Structures are given as structure tokens and as C-alpha cells.
């Protein structure tokens, strides 16, 4: 049908973002930009110790400061009714719970919010926040990962469920790599990397009635946030409204509800006014999640001709004392290569720090750094090209689940990437290719992430003006969700994109999952397809006698669409693809529908195909780097990222996502490290001058190539996620290129000049 109206189809078009103009002109409203009547401002006071308790808080000076309406601490805070009453938030459940802000005098991490000051202006709130004087009884904190490794434990979820993917895993013989003729064992470390999307964490909390809360909040899950706050405040879910129409980047940062959100909600309740709270950039480093510091050890062994004998991969990730944060660091090791023996061990290490959270390519990006570095090291021991080594251990079915892949076009990715980066220029012997004072090297790394899909709903309404309005409670944290949903609906309805409006970021819309885990297009796109099918079905029912016996998929919303032209001034008619003479005006349909615009809700959910197939997206990243022989500086001079991510709905937004992931990977590989001074349990690199995210000058030309073959087992559009695989495998590609350039293997990120000189 799409061929009839759009010769080239809507799916795949590198269409501009539907909200691009709003974003670049300032018309898009982000959480902190809702200027509600009576809105007041606030600022947080953070603890200056990492562990202990507050012995006294002197708020008098702050309260007397001009414009101050309230200074709220654990002493005077209203109690959040849903907070568990145990002494430590992780007791009795050791899986824990989010920090209970202003609950009691206990301090669990440095810069923990201990007070919120509400005032009529932001400046006055911040000034008064500086006047709050807090006394502590400090206890000995443990923030050093290295000093506490013996305290690492198996996560509770794995203890409870031996089949958990976090549980100890043994395929074949344990530690069989030790028996291999060619083997290596190496340790890899990544530091904590801090979430720093462009938009700071911000919330406007507004109690519209004593039991009715609206929040404009920077979150990735409007429904999840609705549920969390309803539970906290013991009010019905429908009494909580969460708005996140625009989110200025999140990367996982918005997948958890953080203490500052509840602080603002408490404040709004106590002052009886809408309260705005936006974190400072420094606070983004201390209380809203991060990629956790992780230690890993990989043992890998192969036959002389490069057949893997065994891989043993151990990982320990940092978490807080009050929540068990876990991530699937070892997943790629279990399923990526044809090794008869695979051993994985995952542990977490609770420290007196704030809780980490998923950060783009969560776990897998950490794990891939170790695994893909170790394979590279093995390739030199074997004297086999790194791509060839991977091809010799290619898996035609998932060796972990013993299931066929739904689709896997990884070989195509290797080929496309090798051609584009110029892999033939890579010297087999490291440290032998020079360009003046610079050593040149090439490296590659593989990434994979589950092609996830979750149940989701979408509402479709055919407006009298001919626009199809779609709504779903998903969010768009930057990938262009709104844009691709318009494309999917346009394709499903045979309408031009401009006839579609897609709304999201509102908890009153039909249920959709959080935007996380690369699952939004597969989940919400499926719901959109279902809603469009429901809409056609409903129109068929309301079409009248001429439509009886016709199939829903033949229904057209057609009179305004004449071959590729769309004329909104023509009357809106419903017709049949199979019989041009059957037509009914939409005004007649409306009449038959009791004067109501036709509205349906469609639901998409994964079926049992997930028990029959293993579903993953795949990526291969290639890097060309130059390392200065005298100063140790590393510059990435070219990158190529190739992905098997099923159908590409929009080549422009998908390409943007891949490029963003590659730049994030450059930061992970070369510049980003959140350092704690363990004497104080406090971060020392906590602003953009000292914590280095890559700048434009660090990002070279990044070429993106997609296989673009549909995987119709995953979802009706044939898509597989992109968000995570865009970064998974980038850091090892760069680390491997640095080795190829210099012969120096850096196993602790980031690879800064001091490590190479």
C-alpha cells in the first residue's frame, strides 16, 4: 500500500525531526521551563561527609534570609508515607530501596541532600542554602573500590534465583581456558563515569490538591515515575501526573527516581506552591547515578589455529550501601563467540557512595571493554588478524540459550567496517606505522545488546480535520522517537507524515515502557502499528453498507491523498483500496460514532517467538588513532561504526544515534574518569573543566553503516534497537587501536597521555 502513495516508502526516509524546529528555536519546553502560577524556587544543601549522621542543623540564618519560604530538613520534613520504616533502607530487603530523602539523620554518601531551601527566586534560594550549618558525627566511610574488593558479593537476585543472568555461569568445563595451548589472563578496570546529559536534572512539583500531584520531571519513564510517586505518597496512580514532553538527553540517568525529585515534592507540599528544583552541574556528579567503577578479569585460551577453548570472565561493579545496582556486564561473553567452555562470575561491591544507574550500553559496554580487549590480545599471541579470529569463532546460533538467532548479520558488519576504515592499512606488528611524530594504529571491537521488546499501548484518533493523533506514554530522550513513530504510523495508514501527530511524555497516555534498553521503537512502534490497524477496523465498522465484507487492511483514509500529494483542503473520506467507488465522508462516520471522533487503543506485546529465537542487535566499531611519540596524546582520527539493527526507520536519526554513541565511547576510552579522594569520600573531578567529556575537536569523521535488513521476528517493523550498540565495543576498538599504534596495552581506562608516555 505504501507504494501506491509514496513511491520510496516512508520507512527509512532520513526525515527531519518533527520537533527539530521547536528544539532549535527554544519552543520545546523542558522540565524546568514550566512557569506555573505561584511557582517558587529551591536549592539543595548536600552533606560534606560520606558516612555518619547529622548531629545538628542550624537553619535559623537561612530562614531569616530574604525571600525564604521554607528550609526543610529531616527535622521538620513531613514524612513520606510510603517510605519503609526500617533503620537502613536496605534492611530487611538487601536489594534495598532508593534513598529516603529527609527521612532521618543518617548519611550514606557525600553530597547527600540534607536540606532544601525554598525561596521566591533561585538566587535567594541558593544564597540561603549556603547559610545552612550542619554538624555531623562522621563514621569511617569506605569509598575505595580497591581497598574493599574482598567485600564483593553475589547480588541478592542471583542468590534467590540461580537461573538469574547474574548468577554464576558455567558452560562446559569451569576455567577451561587454562588448558588451552595459547592463553592469556588479564585484568581490566574502568572508573566511574558520570551521567552528564546537556539538560540538568530538573523537576517542577505541583500538588494540585492534597492527594493530586503533577510533576514536570526529567525522566525516561513517565508511567514508572507515576507508579513510584503514587506508592511513595499512598495515593491512587491516576492522581499522579508525570509530564516529560522533552528530555534533553538522559542516557539512563532518568531511569531511576532520585532523592532530589522527592525533595521537591515534599517542599511543594509543605509550602503549598509549585516548587522548581534544578540540580547544579556539580550535583549531577554526586546524586543521580553513573556508570559504576568496575574491575574485570578475563582468562581466554585458544588452539593455535584460533579456535576458542574457553573464556572465563569475572566482573565486580560498585554499588551503594542502600541499593543493589546490577547490570549485565557478562552477557556478551556468554553468547558472542563459539567457545565450548565459558565461565562467568558477577559480583557487586557496596560502598559508601550514591547508587549507580544504567548508562548507555549499561554493563555490556563495561564487559565488552574487557572481552574485546582480551580477544585483541589473543589475536597477537596467535598472530591471527582480529577480525579473522572472530570469524573463526562465529556463532550461527546462540550458544548460551541454544536457540537460533532471529537474525544476525554480523559478518556483513565486519566486512563493511573493514572496507570503510581501510583495515588493510593496519600493521600486523604494533608500533610500526608512523605519520611524522605520531604512531598510527587501527583497532576494532564488537558490541551486542538484546533486541528487547516490551508490551506497549498507543491511542489513535482520527480528528475531524483529517489528522491522525497518536498518543503513548513513552518518552523521547533524544533519539527521535516522535519522528520515527510518525513514520511508522504514516506507513501503516498510507498517509503522509504531515498528516500524523505523535504525542508522548505524559502519564495520562496509554501505558508504555520506559525509554531504556534500546526497546522503544520495537515496543511503542508495535503499539502504533496495532493502533493503526485498530483504527482501520473501527472505520470499517462505521463505514456503512458499502464496507461490509471488506478487510480492515484495505481501508484507506484516502481522499486527501492523491498519489504523492496531500491536499488538506479536500473533504476527508474513508474508502477502500480494493474498490475506488466505495467512499464515505468522515462527517457521516462521525455521526455514526455518536458525534465522537473515531478513537482506538492498540496494544503490541511480544509473543512466544522469544522462546524460540535468540534476539540481539550487533555492532562493530573501527577506530584509527594517532599517538604522539613524545607527549603520549591520543587522537582518534577516524571511526566507522556498523550495525545490524534490523530495519532502519530513519537513517538520519539512527545515524545520529550511532555517532553519539561513538563520541560517548571516545570519552569512555580516552578522557572520562570520576575520581574520589578516599580520605574525604568526595569526588574531586566534578565539573566540566576537570571531568573531561569529549569536545567537538575530539570527534573525528565518524562513518556509520547499517545492514538495514528487517528482523520480523522481533516486531512488525523488523527493527532491533540501536541506542546501546552505538557505544558497546567502541572503547575496546580505541584501546586496541592504541595498542596497534604503540605496542602498549592499557587495561585501565581512560587512556590518558600519562599512561602512554
Amino acid at each position, binding site marked *: 500500500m505504501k507504494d501506491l502513495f509514496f513511491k520510496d516508502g516512508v520507512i527509512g526516509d532520513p526525515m527531519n525531526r518533527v520537533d527539530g524546529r521547536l528544539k532549535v528555536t527554544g519552543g520545546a519546553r523542558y522540565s524546568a521551563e514550566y512557569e506555573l502560577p505561584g511557582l517558587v524556587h529551591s536549592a539543595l544543601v548536600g552533606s560534606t561527609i560520606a558516612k555518619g549522621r547529622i548531629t545538628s542543623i542550624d537553619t535559623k540564618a537561612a530562614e531569616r534570609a530574604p525571600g525564604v519560604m521554607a528550609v526543610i530538613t529531616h527535622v521538620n520534613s513531613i514524612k513520606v508515607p510510603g517510605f519503609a520504616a526500617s533503620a537502613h533502607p536496605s534492611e530487611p530487603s538487601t536489594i534495598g530501596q532508593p534513598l529516603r530523602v529527609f527521612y532521618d539523620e543518617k548519611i550514606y554518601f557525600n553530597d547527600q541532600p540534607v536540606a532544601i531551601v525554598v525561596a521566591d527566586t533561585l538566587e535567594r534560594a541558593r544564597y540561603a542554602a549556603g547559610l545552612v550549618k550542619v554538624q555531623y558525627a562522621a563514621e569511617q566511610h569506605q569509598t575505595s573500590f580497591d581497598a574493599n574488593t574482598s567485600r564483593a558479593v553475589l547480588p541478592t537476585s542471583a542468590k534467590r534465583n540461580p537461573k538469574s543472568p547474574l548468577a554464576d555461569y558455567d558452560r562446559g568445563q569451569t576455567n577451561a581456558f587454562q588448558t588451552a595451548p595459547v592463553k592469556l589472563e588479564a585484568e581490566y578496570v574502568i572508573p566511574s563515569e558520570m551521567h552528564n546529559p546537556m539538560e540538568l536534572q530538573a523537576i517542577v512539583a505541583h500538588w494540585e490538591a492534597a492527594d493530586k500531584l503533577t510533576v514536570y520531571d526529567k525522566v525516561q519513564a513517565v508511567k514508572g515515575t507515576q507508579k513510584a510517586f503514587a506508592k511513595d505518597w499512598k495515593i491512587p496512580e491516576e492522581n499522579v501526573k508525570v509530564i516529560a514532553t522533552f528530555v534533553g538527553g538522559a542516557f539512563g540517568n532518568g531511569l531511576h527516581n532520585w532523592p532530589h525529585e522527592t525533595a521537591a515534592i515534599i517542599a511543594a507540599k509543605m509550602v503549598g506552591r509549585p516548587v522548581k528544583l534544578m540540580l547544579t552541574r556539580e550535583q549531577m556528579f554526586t546524586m543521580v547515578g553513573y556508570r559504576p567503577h568496575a574491575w574485570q578479569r578475563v582468562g581466554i585460551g585458544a588452539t593455535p589455529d584460533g579456535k576458542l577453548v574457553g573464556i572465563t570472565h569475572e566482573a565486580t561493579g560498585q554499588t551503594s550501601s542502600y541499593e543493589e545496582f546490577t547490570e549485565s556486564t557478562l552477557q556478551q561473553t556468554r553468547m558472542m563467540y563459539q567457545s565450548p567452555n565459558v565461565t562467568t562470575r558477577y559480583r557487586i561491591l557496596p560502598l559508601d557512595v550514591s547508587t549507580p544507574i544504567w548508562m548507555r550500553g549499561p554493563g555490556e559496554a563495561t564487559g565488552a571493554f574487557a572481552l574485546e580487549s582480551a580477544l585483541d590480545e589473543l589475536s597477537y599471541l596467535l598472530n591471527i588478524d582480529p577480525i579473522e579470529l572472530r570469524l573463526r569463532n562465529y556463532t550461527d546460533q546462540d550458544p548460551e540459550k541454544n536457540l537460533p538467532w532471529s537474525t544476525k548479520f554480523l559478518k556483513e558488519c565486519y566486512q563493511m567496517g573493514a572496507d570503510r576504515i581501510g583495515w588493510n592499512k593496519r600493521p600486523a606488528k604494533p608500533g610500526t606505522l608512523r605519520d611524522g611524530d605520531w604512531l598510527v594504529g587501527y583497532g576494532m571491537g564488537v558490541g551486542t545488546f538484546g533486541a528487547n521488546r516490551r508490551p506497549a499501548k498507543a491511542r489513535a484518533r482520527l480528528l475531524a480535520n483529517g489528522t491522525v493523533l497518536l498518543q503513548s506514554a513513552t518518552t523521547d530522550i533524544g533519539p527521535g522517537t516522535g519522528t520515527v513513530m510518525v513514520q511508522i504510523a504514516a506507513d501503516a495508514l498510507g498517509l503522509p507524515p504531515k498528516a500524523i501527530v505523535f504525542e508522548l511524555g505524559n502519564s495520562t497516555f496509554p501505558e508504555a515502557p520506559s525509554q531504556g534498553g534500546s526497546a522503544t521503537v520495537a515496543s511503542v512502534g508495535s503499539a502504533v502499528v496495532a493502533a493503526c490497524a485498530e483504527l482501520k477496523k473501527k472505520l470499517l465498522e462505521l463505514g456503512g453498507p458499502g464496507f461490509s465484507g471488506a478487510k480492515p487492511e484495505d481501508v484507506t483514509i484516502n481522499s486527501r491523498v492523491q498519489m504523492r500529494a496531500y491536499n488538506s483542503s479536500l473533504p476527508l473520506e474513508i474508502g477502500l483500496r480494493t474498490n475506488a467507488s466505495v467512499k464515505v465522508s468522515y462527517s457521516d462516520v462521525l455521526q455514526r460514532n455518536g458525534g465522537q471522533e473515531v478513537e482506538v487503543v492498540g496494544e503490541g506485546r511480544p509473543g512466544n517467538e522469544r522462546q524460540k529465537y535468540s534476539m540481539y542487535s550487533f555492532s562493530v566499531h573501527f577506530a584509527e588513532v594517532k599517538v604522539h611519540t*613524545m*607527549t603520549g596524546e*591520543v587522537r582518534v582520527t577516524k571511526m566507522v561504526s556498523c550495525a545490524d539493527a534490523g530495519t532502519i526507520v530513519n537513517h538520519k536519526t539512527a545515524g545520529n544515534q550511532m555517532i553519539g554513541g561513538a563520541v560517548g565511547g571516545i570519552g569512555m576510552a*580516552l578522557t572520562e574518569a570520576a575520581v574520589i579522594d578516599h580520605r*574525604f569520600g568526595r569526588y574531586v573531578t566534578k565539573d566540566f573543566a576537570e571531568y573531561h567529556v569529549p569536545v567537538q575537536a575530539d570527534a573525528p569523521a565518524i562513518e556509520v553503516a547499517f545492514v538495514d535488513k528487517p528482523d520480523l521476528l522481533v516486531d512488525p517493523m523488523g527493527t532491533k534497537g540501536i541506542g546501546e550498540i552505538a557505544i558497546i565495543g567502541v572503547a575496546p576498538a580505541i584501546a586496541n587501536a592504541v595498542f596497534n599504534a604503540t605496542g602498549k596495552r592499557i587495561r585501565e581506562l581512560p587512556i590518558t*597521555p*600519562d599512561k602512554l*608516555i
Partner: protein
Amino acid sequence: MNQFQYVRPTKQKAAIDAFGREADTQFIAGGTNLLDLMKRGVMNPTKLVDINRLPLDRIDRDKGTLLIGALALNSTVAEHPQVRQLHPLLGQALSAGASAQLRNMATVGGNMLQRTRCYYFYDTAMPCNKREPGSGCGALEGYNRMHAIFGFSDKCIAVHPSDMSVALVALDATVLVSGPKGDRRIPFGGLHRLPGDTPQRDTNLEPGELITAVSIPDNPFTKNVHYLKVRERASYAFALVSVAAALHIENNVIRDARLAMGGVAHKPWRLTEAEKSLIGKLATEATFRQAADVAMQGARAFKHNAYKLKMAPNSIIQALKQAAAVA
């Protein structure tokens, strides 16, 4: 941020008078550093004297010197034809600093007065003798990756962060100052101090003294110069180590040389002995290595900055090679 008084005089004398005797007054120009420090409570002036309306942004050549007004913007100076022609080393150093946006706001006077980027100085919850005399040096036993290898004391091991200052000290610039007691000239090397027992004092300026201009004498360093800044990201990062190198070469013999380092001390670190070791020698890598050896005499590292003991001499050699165009 604390409340403060704010005045914006249009005359230099009025600005100096407005400073008065209050110890916690600050002049403000571009504000690229001071505002950050005020927002974080690191500096809490009760009065700001905004000098942006003073007529101090001119760049003039007169009697063998180039006079650059204190309010000339970093970006303006970096691109100025006479700077590029007469003192390309200064242009290179300025362009290596901060980001384009900051260079468009930051002034020459403010650049040389920017405070250290030591983590402990910036966090009011940690000790720092520079911020709070007597509280201790957080960096001495702490995370001292960015810190000094020369001229430090047990009270402070912070480094001066400016790139421009490294070029100016190499070029024998003079700072023109006006204050309550009149005008005076300070050789650039005497502007900044070593920390000693009073790390709270970055410079030898007296209270109320205003930098009005910097003067650079003509010199033969118009061709063989290089400012090398080593950092882990390609832009907008403070130097791990930087080197300002200027050579006057005739027939492959070094007739005169200037050499200074940044990121290694509490002040821009002029390397006069290394300069002497270069003069009269052939412009070869061997000569440069020898100069680097001389330059590094007395260097001492801490737990996290030992890499500078190798990066610094390497950078000197590299900068001299690039200045001399020696492959």
C-alpha cells in the same frame, strides 16, 4: 552566591577609588573565572568593581613595544595582526586556552589573574591553604595529578593555569599597574608568586592595584616559535604540561632563545638556565635534549604526577623541534 555591591565606573581613577580599603573587593572584567568561584562560594567578595567600561582595550605599537590593554579580549589579541606578526608565540598560547566562547569573554588582565584549578581549592568542603589559610593542603597527600613539580611548598602544590602567562613570561613582558599609590611596572616574571607560606596570595599586586596593560618589547622571535600544550582532550582542557619555545636562529645556530613552561608550578615557569644552554648551539635535537635536562633540574613529583617528570622534558624537546622546524 552572596550578596555584593556592584559599581561600574567609566574612569580608571574612579575604579581604583571605588576599590577603597575593603579587603574583599574584586575587580571584574570578563568574569569567566570569578563568577564560577563566587557561585561555588570559593570567593565571596562583598563588592565588585566592574571595569569593563574603562578605556583599556587598545592594542598599540609604540617605541619598540607592543602595548596591549588589560581589557583586550583573548580572542581579539590572538587574532590581532601585530600580535601575529611580532609575537606569534602569544597568539598561539592564547588560542590554546579555554574555549572559543571563553576567549570571547576573557580579558588579558583577567587571564593572568585566573586562579588555580586545583580540585581542593574549588571544593569548600575540603582543605586548601590558598582558599582558607591554615586549613591544610588537600592536594599534598591527595589527588595531585595536575600539580606542581617545581617551586611548590608544603603549604601548596597548585599550579597556575594560564597559557597566555607562559608566553608572556617568555617574551619578557611587563605588566602596567595603577593603584592607590600610583602607577608602577612589574616585570612579568615578578607578577606571580611561589606559594611559600602564603599561598593565598597568587601575585605581588597590592590591594586596589589594577592591571591596565601589558607591554611586550620587540624581539627577534617572529618565526621560530611554538606553544605546545599537552592535554587529554583536544580543546577546552587545562594543560598537563605546556611549553612556550622561541628561538632566534641564524645559519642553523641559535642566537637567542626563550623557554617557559606551564602546568608545572605556581607561576609561569621561565627556564633561563635552559635558554642559556641553547644559545650558540646548533638547532638540533641533541641540543634540545640537553636543554630539557637543564630545565628539569630540581623537579620533584608527587604520587599522581610523576608522569610530568617525563612529559615535561619530552614536551620541551618537542616544542623546540617544532619551533626550529627540525623534523
